[in-house]
């Protein structure tokens, strides 16, 4: 057998792929497969909460690893990005390919979708060309059964020459057998006999010319046939990758370079271009998948996908598609806002109860007032505020959103809206990252990973802040209730809701315009090719969704926010309590900002609150109240009427409210989002651009609105 991690040493594996081995006996298993095959369900069910997510070294591709124990052996399961191919068309494919090839996992499990096995076999064959240690997992057997699709797993296993295990991962069926098969392959107990794809004469000729020399050069470290195939199809990057991982440059091997020259001559003589050669190779794999499918799969009902089509006829139709989409998203917001109220209050009560105990403790310990102020009134209170305001909406929004995701609805949203984004020279999947942004812009920025083209991913990243997140909704709602719907009596809630919808629509329009402007300036380019799979609808697994969206998204975002909010609270407290010449630093800053703010229809305090609200948007209103009341620490007025009186007595008009709402929608992203943009782009340039683009947009917008209104004498 080739090189296992034992022989390359624990360090190498750790360093290259950040696989954390506890002992050299741990078995490393790669999990590969197409998107939408339930691969992550297999991963989650096997590893439970025993997971660790990070990024692949130097790449913004999620690297999820988990541990499990089966019959006394410890396993590390590495969840590779879901891809349709391993030909390194995208970063995801490159990561998956490199790990299977150079990470030398003890076994690779390829998860496939039983309802579209043929399409998935393409991936299986590509993996089998790289490694012999393969286990095929045919997942979603229940869906297949529902659609009357029967698969002869035993025959499939015989034809492929590797173990094939049928599973229904969402309820755990077949996973024990899968683990057994993984063990037998990883431990070498069972020797696989994986089938080798025979290409047409031209390709086989070329292989005969090249492969022996490559085998000589790289020995048994990697399958020479695979390397030869990549070189024949002209994938030169593989040479650099090989050099990186193996430390040898096979170009320096004279016999290899001589063979490569002969290959080029052979192709020249027959006038076979790169594209044609690749066509020949892919065609063979696809034909082969077709043959295998014909031998192993029986469709008892040829109309098996009629139900999906009927649903699509409604959800993506010309007339009902977009209205249904708006209604569904509206419903999600409504449930989030309504549902978050009560737990938010309960949480606030709980956290302030803790504050009182902390106060008691400080009094008991006899610590000085300034320390108490800085730590409790500054740091703790800000942190408590952020948690109380952010946690409940996120804990409601993310699971709801994940349910739509799990149902298979989100790709339909992208399908419905793609044309708008195409006109803005962006990607339809940006619609999905925007939806995510409604929950949290940092989460929205992470979601931009689903966009393949780097240019379009940056556009989506920079513009994500134009959709208001959960942290900004409270500000928007409060101001809409007080100043826009204030006198509308019993229609107050309705008018406020309409104002919010108008703000959201405005945000979407601005997103499209700014995307278009970016595509014509700093991110020049045409829309890249767009292929979007509309997977079959599936029953969501509600229990698992709630657990995982809270664990993966809510707590993750909250932790990052808390990291920023606590130190920020300290700074804000200092600014509010340090006095120079009788006025606090905040007041001082506000006075400086006042002239600029006036032109924007705001006042110095509002601008100051936005700046101090940089750590987390939800503290903007509390800071504003704090400075108006000059109390030196944050408080919340619990009824809107009191808030209105406070604002009006500080010179607010409806114009101030409108401009504040506009600026709330269009200003720099919060600290958490900035940090996330930095991590995702690995550069300082893009966070800066993401900072200035919305800020300048907001300033222009506020300036125009304020000056127009004043010029017309409307206030």
């Amino acid at each position: 057998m080739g090189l296992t991690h034992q022989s390359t040493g624990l360090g190498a594996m750790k360093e290259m792929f950040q696989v954390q081995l506890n002992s050299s006996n741990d078995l490393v298993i790669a999990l590969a497969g197409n998107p939408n095959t339930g691969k992550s369900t297999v991963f989650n069910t096997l590893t439970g909460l025993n997971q660790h997510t990070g990024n692949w070294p130097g790449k913004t591709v999620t690297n999820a690893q988990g541990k499990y124990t089966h019959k006394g052996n410890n396993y590390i399961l590495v969840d590779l990005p879901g891809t349709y191919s391993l030909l390194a068309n995208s970063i995801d494919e490159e990561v998956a390919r490199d790990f299977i090839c150079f990470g030398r996992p003890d076994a690779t499990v390829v998860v496939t979708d039983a309802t579209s096995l043929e399409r998935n076999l393409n991936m299986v064959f590509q993996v089998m060309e790289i490694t012999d240690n393969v286990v095929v997992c045919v997942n979603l057997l229940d869906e297949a059964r529902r659609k009357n699709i029967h698969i002869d797993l035993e025959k499939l296993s015989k034809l492929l020459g590797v173990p094939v295990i049928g599973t229904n991962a969402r309820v755990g069926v077949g996973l024990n057998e899968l683990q057994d098969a993984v063990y037998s392959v990883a431990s070498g107990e069972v020797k696989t006999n994986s089938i080798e794809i025979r290409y047409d004469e031209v390709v086989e000729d070329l292989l005969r010319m090249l492969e022996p020399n490559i085998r000589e050069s790289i020995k048994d470290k990697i399958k020479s046939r695979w390397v030869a195939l990549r070189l024949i199809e002209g994938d030169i990057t593989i040479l650099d990758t090989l050099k990186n991982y193996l430390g040898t440059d096979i170009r320096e091997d004279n016999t290899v370079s001589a063979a490569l020259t002969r290959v080029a001559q052979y192709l020249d003589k027959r006038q076979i271009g790169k594209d044609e050669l690749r066509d020949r190779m892919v065609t063979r794999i696809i034909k082969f998948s077709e043959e295998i499918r014909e031998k192993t799969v029986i469709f008892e009902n040829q109309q098996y996908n009629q139900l999906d089509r009927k649903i699509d006829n409604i959800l993506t139709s010309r007339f009902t598609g977009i209205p249904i989409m708006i209604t569904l998203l509206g419903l999600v917001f409504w449930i989030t806002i309504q549902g978050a109220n009560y737990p938010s209050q309960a949480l606030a009560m709980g956290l302030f109860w803790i504050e009182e105990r902390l106060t008691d403790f400080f009094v008991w310990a006899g610590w000085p007032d300034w320390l108490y102020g800085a730590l409790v009134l500054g740091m703790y209170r800000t942190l408590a505020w952020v948690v109380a305001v952010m946690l409940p909406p996120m804990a409601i929004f993310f699971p709801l959103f994940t349910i739509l995701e799990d149902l298979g609805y989100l790709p339909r949203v992208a399908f419905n809206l793609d044309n708008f984004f195409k006109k803005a020279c962006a990607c339809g999947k940006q619609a999905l990252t925007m939806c995510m942004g409604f929950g949290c812009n940092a989460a929205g920025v992470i979601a931009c990973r689903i966009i393949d083209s780097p240019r379009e991913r940056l556009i989506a990243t920079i513009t994500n802040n134009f959709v208001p997140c959960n942290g900004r909704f409270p500000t928007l709602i409060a101001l809409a209730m007080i100043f826009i719907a204030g006198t509308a009596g019993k229609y107050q809630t309705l008018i406020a809701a309409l104002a919010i919808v108008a703000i959201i629509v405005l945000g979407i329009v601005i997103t499209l315009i700014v995307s278009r402007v970016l595509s014509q300036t700093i991110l020049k380019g045409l829309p890249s090719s767009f292929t979007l799979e509309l997977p079959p609808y599936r029953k969501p697994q509600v229990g698992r969704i709630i657990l995982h969206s809270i664990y993966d998204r809510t707590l993750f975002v909250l932790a990052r926010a808390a990291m920023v909010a606590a130190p920020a609270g300290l700074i804000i407290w200092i600014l509010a309590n340090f006095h120079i010449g009788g006025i606090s630093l905040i007041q001082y800053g506000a006075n400086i900002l006042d002239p600029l703010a006036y032109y924007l229809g705001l006042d110095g305090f509002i601008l100051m609150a936005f700046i101090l609200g940089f750590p987390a948007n939800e503290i903007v209103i509390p800071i504003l109240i704090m400075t108006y009341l000059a109390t030196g620490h944050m408080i919340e007025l619990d009824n809107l009427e009191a808030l209105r009186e406070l604002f009006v007595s500080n010179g607010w008009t409806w114009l101030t409210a409108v401009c504040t709402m506009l600026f709330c929608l269009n200003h720099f992203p919060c600290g958490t989002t900035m940090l996330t943009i930095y991590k995702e782009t690995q550069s300082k340039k893009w966070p800066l651009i993401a900072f200035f683009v919305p800020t300048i947009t907001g300033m222009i917008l506020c300036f125009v609105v304020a000056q127009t209104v004043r010029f017309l004498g409307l206030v």
Partner: protein
Amino acid sequence: MGSLIPLHHLSPGSFGKVRKLTAQGNERRRMLDLGLIYDTKVESLRKSPSGDPVAYEIRGAVIALRSEEASQILVELLRTDR
């Protein structure tokens, strides 16, 4: 053999057989990965609300393609359905 039309001219509900890809390089490779090789049967399923992209059934999967991509896939219209 009938005349070749670009895939996005295939009206919803009708079928075509892939005859030629005019795309090159990476884009061609991506199309091949979708299974769009010579002779593959493709059904045009439906247009999105604004007319583009269009969803197609390709080898059992539903894939949406923008007209820019679909225009690089030439198909022969199949008269018989199924």
